[in-house]
């Protein structure tokens, strides 16, 4: 059945779409066009990123100045959450859980995969649209509904989920109603990701332009393809786990509940028992570790495109990078329990997961090294997108390297649950992935709008964000090395071992607020440039890949003439060529690589 749909869609696209007139709703709301869906995903996800970040800006007040009333905003948080503007621990835990959930599941992944993947991938492979446009639309709307449920949960009795984004049982099972909303929201979000993942895989395999063999795919497409496989294979266990937890909460089952538990007041809990809290952790991390690579691989893809384009030379070690990427994908399924070293794990099992964790660091180092080496011998331009892409490299480097001590169980005796962990994964995801996502926005904005974003505002945004992010996250390593725990409402002020380092919380908080300030330049620039940005031609960056062959913005069906790939994706500065870039679909010109299809 699917095959029929695919074939129909291709035929449909080939006939051209201009003859149809679509209503406003069909064009912009319930659109089946991958570009519109991509933009819908991107804008929704950016709004969630802003919201998730705002939650943290509020939390950081209490971490810096525990117990002090929150200025201005404190009055709007509600008496149940912050009486007199002073945040309650219950509310702090809600903000913490929802910050993590929103940033990961409603912000970064939908932007990196739903936004960039949808918009760029079909264009880069020369396809008229996704293989299953309707499924694509459902994917967005499932995501949207999931987001609405998550936001609405703040108004549930007892507020939003408060058991961390990890929702460890039994805490989550006995938590207030917000947790039920969280689980329902997750089911929507996971469904959305699954629909999207199937679409990405089929599209990449079936709809590549003639001549576009797998080893001619842009690295970004490879990254999205591997990401889609991770989503497809890792998310179902969490979907099952979410439903099981929902049953534990609503139907009185005991999947995650052992016998003999009591409430704080000493009253026995009404669970038949026989369940295991560790089962939840295994199911959760079986998704959530591959999820880390879902967060990082699309970012690597974006950075690779921008680096090749702005160094004006091919990526160094493309084959090794692709191999490493695929290997990373496989390995990401067998490292999950390194999140659980402190649960009472024996030597054999911990040795296995430590070994796989050390192994998975190797392909990451290979990809990062290849990107660094790609710079050598280039003729490097520095547009805003390149600044963001370059900043990704050392920032992801810090995030990756600080993962080494955490990947070994013995050092975890010290680091488990400390701010060192927070510093580590934020360096991967915030100055890492989020900077890369900004790079992608500046890079592909002209493709979506026909205009470039303002350079000066972009540079202010870059330097402000880059410096502020380091001010936010670097102190976390100092706090973590001293052994101060995460998820503490008062930042750890009660503990003697925290006293020497706790002042860094103030620095970190000022960093967060400064980071918020510099986003104003981006938000303004993003909207202002839609009408007032400098108009540019279809290929303003003189890039090689197929998306730059389409008009800007690309019409329904994307290409005016069906593209064909005649060479690799990064034929920059080919010796003997008249220009320093030879486009993938260009008919004439040097062809250093023999055509093989």
């Amino acid at each position: 059945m699917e095959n029929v749909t695919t074939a129909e869609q291709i035929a449909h696209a080939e006939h051209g779409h201009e003859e149809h007139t679509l209503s406003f709703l069909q064009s912009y709301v319930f659109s089946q066009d991958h570009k519109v869906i991509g933009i819908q995903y991107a804008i929704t996800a950016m709004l969630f990123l802003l919201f998730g970040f705002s939650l943290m800006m509020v939390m950081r007040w209490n971490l810096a100045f525990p117990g002090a009333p929150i200025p201005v905003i404190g009055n709007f948080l509600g008496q149940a959450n912050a009486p007199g503007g002073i945040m309650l621990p219950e509310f702090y835990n809600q903000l913490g859980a929802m910050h993590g959930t929103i940033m990961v599941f409603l912000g970064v992944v939908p932007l990196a995969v739903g936004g960039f993947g949808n918009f760029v991938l079909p264009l880069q492979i020369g396809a008229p649209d996704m293989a299953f446009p309707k499924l694509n639309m459902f994917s967005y709307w499932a995501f949207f509904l999931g987001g609405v449920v998550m936001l609405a949960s703040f108004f549930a009795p007892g507020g939003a989920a408060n058991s961390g984004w990890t929702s460890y049982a039994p805490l989550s099972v006995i938590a207030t109603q917000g947790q039920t909303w969280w689980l329902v929201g997750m089911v929507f979000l996971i469904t959305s990701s699954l629909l999207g993942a199937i679409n990405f895989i089929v599209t990449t395999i079936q709809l590549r332009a003639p001549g576009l063999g797998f080893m001619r795919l842009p690295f970004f497409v490879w990254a999205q393809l591997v990401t889609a496989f991770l989503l497809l294979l890792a998310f179902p266990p969490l979907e099952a786990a979410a439903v099981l937890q929902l049953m534990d909460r609503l139907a009185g089952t005991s999947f995650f509940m052992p016998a003999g538990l009591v409430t704080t007041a000493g009253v026995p809990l009404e669970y038949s028992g026989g369940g295991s809290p560790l089962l939840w952790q295994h199911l959760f991390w079986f998704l959530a570790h591959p999820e880390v690579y879902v967060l990082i691989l699309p970012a690597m893809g974006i950075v690779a495109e921008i680096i090749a384009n702005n160094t004006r030379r091919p990526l160094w070690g493309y084959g090794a990078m692709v191999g490493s990427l695929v290997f990373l994908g496989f390995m990401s399924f067998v490292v999950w329990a390194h999140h659980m070293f402190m649960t009472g794990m024996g030597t054999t099992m911990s040795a296995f997961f430590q070994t796989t964790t050390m192994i998975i660091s190797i392909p990451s180092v290979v990809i990062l090294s290849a990107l660094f080496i790609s710079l050598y011998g280039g003729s490097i331009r520095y547009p805003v997108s390149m600044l963001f892409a370059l900043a990704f490299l050392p920032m992801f480097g810090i995030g990756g390297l600080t993962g080494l001590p955490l990947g070994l169980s013995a050092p975890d005796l010290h680091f488990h649950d400390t701010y060192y962990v927070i510093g580590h994964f934020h360096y991967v995801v915030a100055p890492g992935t989020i900077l890369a996502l900004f790079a992608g926005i500046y890079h592909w904005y002209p493709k979506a709008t026909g205009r470039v974003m303002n350079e000066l505002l972009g540079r202010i945004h870059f330097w402000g964000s880059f410096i502020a992010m380091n001010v936010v996250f670097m102190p976390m390593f100092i706090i973590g090395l001293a052994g101060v725990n995460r998820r503490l409402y008062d930042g750890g002020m009660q503990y003697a071992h925290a006293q020497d380092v706790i002042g860094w919380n103030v620095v970190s908080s000022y960093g967060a607020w400064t980071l918020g300030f510099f986003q104003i330049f981006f938000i303004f620039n993003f909207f202002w440039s839609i009408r007032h940005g400098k108009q540019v031609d279809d290929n303003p960056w003189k890039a090689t890949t197929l998306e730059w062959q389409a008009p800007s913005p690309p019409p329904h069906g994307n290409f005016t003439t069906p593209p064909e790939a005649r060479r690799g994706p990064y034929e920059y500065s080919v010796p003997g060529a008249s220009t320093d870039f030879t486009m993938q679909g260009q008919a004439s010109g040097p062809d250093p690589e023999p055509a093989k299809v």
Partner: protein
Amino acid sequence: MLELLGLPPQASAHAAQIDDMIVMLHWLMLVLFVGWIIFFVYTLIRFRASVHPKADYQGVTSHTSSYLDVVVVVVEAVILLAFAIPAWAVRVNALPPEEGATVVHVIAKQFEWHVVYPGPDGRFGRRDASLITSTNAIGLDRSDPNGADDIHSLAYLNLPVDTPVIVYLTTMDVIHSFGITSMRVKQDAIPGMEIPVWWEPTMVGDYEINCSQLCGLGHYRMRGFVTIMTQADYQAFLAEEGAKLSAD
């Protein structure tokens, strides 16, 4: 490097070993990072478009980076096989014999640490959720002959110095984590499981237990106190608590 990292005092026999590993790993991280940055900054300046208008199609042709990758693999393998795995095996497998060790039960509940010492008979009494009252938070069965002399303490864990400790860790409600930062001790308390934790305190003094797993709204204040005392002081403490029990 150790001073630079600002790790807390090493108050247990294995703390230095853990810290050595942390220091080694940070050296590796530092060398790699500084190497990358030097290369990075050099290329960004040397190959900027204004001084290097024509890019080089081939780029780097040497295999130095592959050799460097191999070096990283070897260093990681050595740390893993020679240090990390053996250190963990000792922590979770090589429990010292109970005679000659201090054996205590630590029971976590929202948001308190309870400590039970076996008393002079060296046996722990029965605990039962149905016996929980406002004065008996952990449901200790005083009618059990083994439990009559058990010493129960809220939030305070007293231990003798230079003697191995075995803590049998349980929780009554949600997941908590038993952490003593200065002793590099950490273990999650998992509902339905009793997990042994052992270490040897080496410095007399006062330390803290910090809950290291989100356990609810009072997680931030789920603090306990550890006092490491001389053997004589410890015996005096046990005797004093025992006397209080028989006086009741």
